């Protein structure tokens, strides 16, 4: 564990612009700090996130991926977020077989007004990824 203590994870967060992105925005305007480890990518809907985007992020050296969107049944584009979740479900199974811990991907559904919940979710995910250590993909150019 010692060698991991100095490790600062790199995390990419794909956030739906209608909800979780708005929550992140709210944290910003309310000056509620969250760990600087995450880079946020705003998407129209989590249903837009393909398995290739997630794999490419890991290839580029990311240690964890947070996906934040509308709660089930509340997506603006019918059940698009659930189709996205199906992809994540299958991809996690594939990643496990390739030897990557599927816990490196986390999905959350946080409404636009829930700045505090977003802040905590990021803190928790960052702590969990820090505990997991660097992604084993990182050293593969």
């Amino acid at each position, binding site marked *: 564990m010692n060698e991991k203590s100095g490790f600062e994870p790199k995390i990419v967060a794909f956030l739906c612009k209608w909800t979780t992105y708005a929550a992140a925005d709210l944290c910003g305007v309310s000056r509620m700090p969250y760990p600087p480890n995450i880079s946020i990518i705003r998407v129209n809907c989590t249903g837009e996130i393909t398995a290739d985007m997630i794999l490419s992020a890991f290839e580029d050296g990311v240690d964890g991926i947070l996906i934040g969107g509308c709660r089930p049944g509340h997506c603006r584009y019918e059940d698009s977020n*659930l189709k996205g*979740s199906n992809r994540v479900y299958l991809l996690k199974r594939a990643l496990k*077989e390739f030897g990557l811990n599927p816990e490196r991907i986390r999905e959350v559904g946080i409404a636009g007004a829930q700045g505090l919940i977003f802040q905590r979710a990021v803190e928790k995910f960052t702590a969990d990824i820090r505990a997991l250590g660097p992604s084993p993909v990182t050293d593969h150019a």
Partner: protein
Amino acid sequence: MDKLKIGIYWAAACGGCDCSLLEVNEQILDVAAGADILLWPCATDAKYDDLRGYSDRELDIVLFNGAIRTEENRDMAQLIRAKTKRLVAYGACAHTGGVIGLANLSTRAEIFTTVFGAEKEWPQALSNQAGHQLHLPAFLDHLTPLSDVVDVDYVIPGCPPPRKIVSEFFSALLAGDLPEPGAVFAAEKNLCDECEREREHTQITHILRVHEASPDPEKCLLDQGFLCMGPATRGGCGAVCPNANMPCTGCAGAPADVSDQGTAMLNTLASLVGTGAEGEDQIEGENAILEQIDDVIGTFYRYAAAKSLFGRRYREQHGQTN
């Protein structure tokens, strides 16, 4: 016109690709009339030293089947590359790593332990046998497609390549009519584009394996729940498997505009499953359908695991590749 000088080589292969060359039937006589076969370990006894003796680019074309698994495979790929003007990745193993690319899900140590047992039993690259030094080609850490070690001019995909495509290739070769390097002897689009089954784009409510039910011969296999790789696989074979009532397993690799075959199929399938339920129940129901897939990598990456965005086994606990 002088006869062409050609070669055929197998690396980490099963022999099926060599056999598939004979599926062109009597056309093989045209090949023999128009070309001298200078290298073909499966059928002729030309030695590696003969190959070393040729001048650079002396051969016109070499069909290379099999993946790169050992040092010998890699060294031969490099030697052949130097001796030939055109190099063809022939078959799924050379093209995308093939079925044996699934070995990349295990580390070298795991493979050796399974096959040979305790480490002291493992074969050594260099050893002394009855007073003689024996050199065995080392087993590389990962299996790779041919294009990972040398430049490849053409691809003839398939496991093994279907007769129609092999025959078209030989015709073009003998007529001196090969396309520009970079060409893939197959369709650009996916297999569904040439498959004649009726596609209704219904929701998939359950996953079926071929031993569990007989598919309706007219309807799209995927619509019926059989995991047909058609949407994520390059066409050009004439849909021989769906025509024989078997789902496509993906041997031709990804279509021209797709970078990763497995994720492409995974994205497609994730959108097709459905139970009719909504909200929280929907996600559970759909995940339950997807859970019926027994072997995720073996289904989506049966031939292309070694060419996938990952392509090899990682080890979390050591924080490094193995």
